[in-house]
């Protein structure tokens, strides 16, 4: 596929051009940093350095609260599918990879989740790689990197005077076909930036060994020790780009059936109607979270369920660090 370039001062014009046929969802400034919004003007697009929104863009395809159907006069009606195609501009590779991983859950032909699939098929992902990794990120140790290709249709590398675009899919190629071709100087500069973006000290985590060790530790008391300071809130799971658990509620007052994000870190998550709870304490719940990310995902998809975005590390109120926890349990490093 042919790589393209956009001169820095021509970016807004290109985005405006895209806005004629697509809805462009991009990060805009907000009180808590940046978050994704549909923009009405290319100038709203904000993305500096290696910043990314705290609130994960999985919400674009799996909204935190989504109406599944509404009941009116005794009949159901589903919400309409998005009409226009969308460009998700300014994703990071950790979040794009997460969408790619979640496709294995929601977007498989035999078990299609219509709500996810409808949005996914209409959306193109244009990711911006990170020239230098974020401080709590570790995407390069869990099988990806700041310029990881999975989940994106186009990967953008910021050069001094231009943006270098690499189409990764047919849809990405079609989107960029009218742009100027990249010259060899551009390609060389981009490859340099991509190579030097990873942290030298980081090493690839041995996912299959970690998986093995986690299973070995399953019945030991280590989980109680490492989860002692966990508050049991939902910050790590709600901000995680790959967490996808949900709860379906019939909101009678609103005559709607709604799907909301749920979190395995809440006690009531696994509480059964009888009062029995198979995960009665934080130890079991923490074990579930870590096993899901580093054991069960690896079992099912041979890939880490954690994309190394680092949000949980940066924003956990008690600074519980999933890398430290895995290291303490397995003796194997993630870093």
């Amino acid at each position, binding site marked *: 596929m042919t790589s393209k370039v956009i001169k820095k001062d021509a970016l807004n014009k290109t985005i405006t051009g895209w806005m004629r046929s697509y809805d462009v969802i991009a990060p805009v400034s907000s*009180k*808590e940093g940046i978050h994704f919004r549909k923009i009405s003007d290319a100038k709203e697009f904000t993305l500096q350095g290696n910043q990314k929104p*705290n*609130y994960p863009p999985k919400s674009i395809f799996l909204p*935190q*609260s989504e109406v599944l159907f509404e009941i009116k006069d005794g009949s159901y009606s589903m919400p309409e599918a998005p009409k226009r195609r969308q460009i998700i501009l300014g994703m990071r590779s950790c979040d794009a990879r997460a969408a790619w991983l979640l496709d294995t859950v929601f977007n498989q032909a035999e078990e299609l989740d219509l709500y996810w699939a409808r949005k996914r098929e209409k959306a193109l992902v244009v990711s911006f790689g990170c020239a*230098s990794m*974020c*401080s*709590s990120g570790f995407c390069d140790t869990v099988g990806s990197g700041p310029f990881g290709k999975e989940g994106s249709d186009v990967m953008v590398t910021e050069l001094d005077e231009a943006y270098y675009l690499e189409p990764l899919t047919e849809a990405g190629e079609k989107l960029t076909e009218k742009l100027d071709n990249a010259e060899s100087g551009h390609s060389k500069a981009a490859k340099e930036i991509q190579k030097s973006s990873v942290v030298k000290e980081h090493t690839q985590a041995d996912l299959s060994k970690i998986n093995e060790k986690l299973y070995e530790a399953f019945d030991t008391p280590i989980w109680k020790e490492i989860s*002692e*300071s966990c*508050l*049991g*809130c*939902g*910050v790590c799971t*709600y*901000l995680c780009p790959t967490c996808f658990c949900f*709860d379906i*509620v019939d*909101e009678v*007052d*609103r005559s709607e059936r*709604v799907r*909301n994000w749920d*979190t395995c870190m*809440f006690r*009531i998550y696994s509480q059964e109607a009888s009062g029995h709870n198979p995960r009665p304490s*934080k130890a079991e719940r923490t074990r579930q979270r870590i096993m899901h990310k580093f054991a069960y995902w690896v079992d099912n998809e041979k890939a880490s369920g954690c994309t190394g975005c680092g949000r949980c*590390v*940066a*924003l956990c*109120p*008690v*600074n*519980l*660090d999933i*890398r*430290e926890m895995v290291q303490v349990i397995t003796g194997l490093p993630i870093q």
Partner: protein
Amino acid sequence: MDDFGQVRKEAARILSEKKVDVVLGFKSGTIPLKAQPAFITSAKDANTLILDGFCQNNLAVFLHDLPKDKRIGFICRGCESRAVRALAIEHQVKRENLYLIGVPCSGILDWKKIQDEVEGPITSAVDNGKEIILEIHGEKQTLKRNAFLVDSCRTCTGIEPVGTDVIIGEVHLLDLDDDELPPTWAEEFEKHSPEERYQLFTEETDRCIRCYACREACPMCYCAECFVDHIMPRWSESMVTRGGTQAWHLIRAFHQTGRCVECGACERACPMDIKMTYMTDKLNADMKKKYGFEVGADDEKQPPFATITLDDKNRFVS
């Protein structure tokens, strides 16, 4: 912070003399600007204890999880000691099983504000009680501490630990040159018109993602079943709608009336930077004005909503 060596010694002593089973404090975090809660069970680990402006939790919240018969040594700052008092009054902790080591506090720092202030990745951060010394790309950068204190610490009136078994170190009030600091969000809120106040309240709550970090970080929120988890009746939708989230914030604040210790742990835990202490500050101020009640002021007085007196009959005129 040199006194802190004394605190470590004391912690080691009470553990080795088997006066307590565990000491609750802080240890270094895994990334700069952070600290982790520490549960020290052996005297030799006591030297991992630290205390600085990056210790942003109210440790009293862990008293609920530890078994009630465990003897706990607790290194507490002003707000944490108030929380212990308030919990003891509500019969949630057994004071005789706690050994409280009161320590001075220089106020907690807003790590997000520090990160936003500087350019480039912070590879190390040290808070020595007077300045914040950062290392960025191998170069040192020093920041003045006061400008980065969290709002609740700027308006703290209870820096001296109360009801502790011992106080190690000299407690002094924060030296805040009020002129150079902008007013806190809570101070600003009061000055607006009712329409604007409702607007501000709505703007803050619209950002909420119902992660309940505020509730879990709060030492006074310990209900086995929170009102948001009630299904019959449904007080608050679990969806992220304006109604559900407004109900969540306003009722949680209201349930803290006369109980909130004004530590600000809720705001610090919030991943979306939502302001909440302005509500509990106002409710607590009302409790002081109307009933002369201050949280943590003594060991026995019940919070105003838990008690009534016949004086009340002259209080409420339509």
